[in-house]
């Protein structure tokens, strides 16, 4: 019988602790498959964040570091500067990357560190129980914005991809979502492309993945996918925000 689907070698054979219907699991799989397909698993060093994916170091089947909250890009910088020929990636949530760790991500992009970042934006702090994230949408209720996020008080949600795309060193920036099979396939392509850019030595690459948190949104999984599509994508448009490798080509033409 033909094998049509197998667990990727990029993930360890243990079940994750993620809530049912949480899309962290899909994003793990895409990240792991991309590494497997590119043949870099035995050359890879990953950096896990603080957030729901704090245990990512148990799930990715490669060498891993657990970083302090927000500091993964600095940790990855240290690793990559010591081992420039190895494949180095971070996996970070939106509280981790877009709030406490903004300095680290901005400057890693600015230096065009030759690392890849998988940035999971679920518009909330999952691990700590559903508090407001910098990415929480205007009007969205969380445990620290119980009446809905009021931009006059808490500011507008931060668009990381748009912001990073203005940095010359940010070689590749793309936003994707995992709300439908078609979008999952696109997400995989973007992650793989981001990883290839590192392997080609072309500098900093980041893929922002719009993700769900059914538990803390208080929405059952199928409707959470719908909520993502109807609420997050209009504010966080999908697409490529920067691909300096293509700009180089068009400059030459």
């Amino acid at each position, binding site marked *: 019988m033909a094998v049509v689907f197998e667990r990727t070698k990029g993930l360890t054979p243990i079940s994750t602790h993620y809530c049912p219907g949480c899309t962290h699991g899909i994003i793990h799989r895409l990240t792991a498959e991309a590494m497997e397909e590119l043949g870099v698993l035995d050359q890879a060093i990953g950096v896990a964040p603080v957030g729901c994916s704090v245990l990512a170091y148990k799930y990715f089947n490669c060498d891993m570091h657990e970083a*302090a909250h927000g500091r993964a890009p600095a940790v990855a910088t240290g690793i990559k500067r010591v081992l420039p020929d190895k494949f180095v990636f971070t996996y970070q949530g939106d509280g981790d990357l877009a709030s406490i760790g903004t300095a680290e991500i901005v400057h890693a992009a600015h230096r065009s560190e030759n690392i890849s970042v998988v940035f999971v934006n679920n518009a909330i702090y999952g691990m700590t129980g559903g508090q407001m994230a910098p990415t929480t949408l205007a009007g969205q209720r969380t445990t620290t914005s119980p009446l809905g996020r009021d931009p006059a008080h808490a500011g507008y949600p931060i668009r990381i991809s748009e912001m990073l795309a203005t940095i010359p060193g940010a070689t590749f920036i793309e936003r994707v979502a995992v709300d439908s099979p078609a979008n999952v396939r696109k997400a995989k392509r973007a992650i793989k492309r981001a990883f290839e850019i590192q392997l080609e030595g072309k500098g900093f690459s980041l893929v922002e993945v719009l993700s769900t948190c059914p538990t803390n949104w208080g929405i059952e999984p199928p409707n959470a996918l719908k909520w993502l599509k109807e609420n997050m994508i209009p504010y966080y448009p999908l697409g490529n925000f920067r691909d300096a490798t293509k700009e180089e080509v068009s400059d030459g033409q």
Partner: protein
Amino acid sequence: MAKVLMKGNEAIGEAAIRAGCRYFFGYPITPQSELPEYMSLHLPKAGGVFLQAESEIAAINMVYGASGSGARVMTGSSTPGIALKQEGISYIAGAQLPCVIVNMMRGGPGLGSIQPAQSDYNQSTRGGGGGDYRLLAYAPASVQEMVDYVQLAFDKADEYRNPVLVVGDGVIGQMMEPVEFRATAASDLPPKDWATTGTGGKRPPNIINSLYLDAEELERHNIHLAEKYNRIKENEQRWESVGLEGAELVIVAYGTTARIAKSAMENLNRQGKKIGLLRLITLWPFPEKGFAELDEATKDLLVVEMSMGQMVDDVRIVNEGKRGVHFVGRSGGVIPSTALVEEKILEILERSE
């Protein structure tokens, strides 16, 4: 090798490179900026990497990554910057990684001043990060000692898989003195088989981590760390003692202050007084063994610090009420004079007569 005249901060850089350090991550701050400046020029020549980080927080986390990947790595800063590094230091200690951290102390609290101080004694010996961890902390008193202990610090960090702190004050960083770089004894260090270098398909993944969600497991980890710290306490106490025999009073000091104290001691001994000196070389572990050598004749201890009195607490603990414990110091960046120390000693001697 012939002696060369070098500024303290630059000598630290050269000593680190000779000890095999190839990575330096830092952020500028007075009075230690000559160290990153030196590294930015000389590390690349040695095939290494100097990187100016966006903050001390980023710098220490780069150190965490580099160390986890098996490199000899260093960072340096001064008081407020070391404060920012504390979270990272706690992670590095928790994950049991080696690295060397230099603190050229300046006056505090807050932004304080850029003048020399010793008011990070508590921070150096108690730590500012969370959890049950300790740092081996050297406090050299000359540029030569700085060089020797920076070199040793890298070996000790590897031996114990623990961050090592080298503490100076602005004076030692800025001072020029002749130094000799001695070849370090070939050390018998264990291989870094825990480092994340990519599995190469040859071993299971290595994980650098300080998270233990299970309470019992974290406790076992903490017990393991405590055993290591006890070994450090047993084996790594260092101090220098001068004229303890028959001394009526012994001065306790470290770093620049110990040099001032020594001059005061010599002046008074020439006048027929019997004064000794116990100079701490390790702040942690606190050299309790040095205090065990104190003479029965010694009635008083005088702690001299460039702070409002921080080490004096540890001296009281080790003293167990046996002798009088006194303190004299200046703070805020003011360096105590020999006259001040002599005056205080005479006052104590008079009182106890």
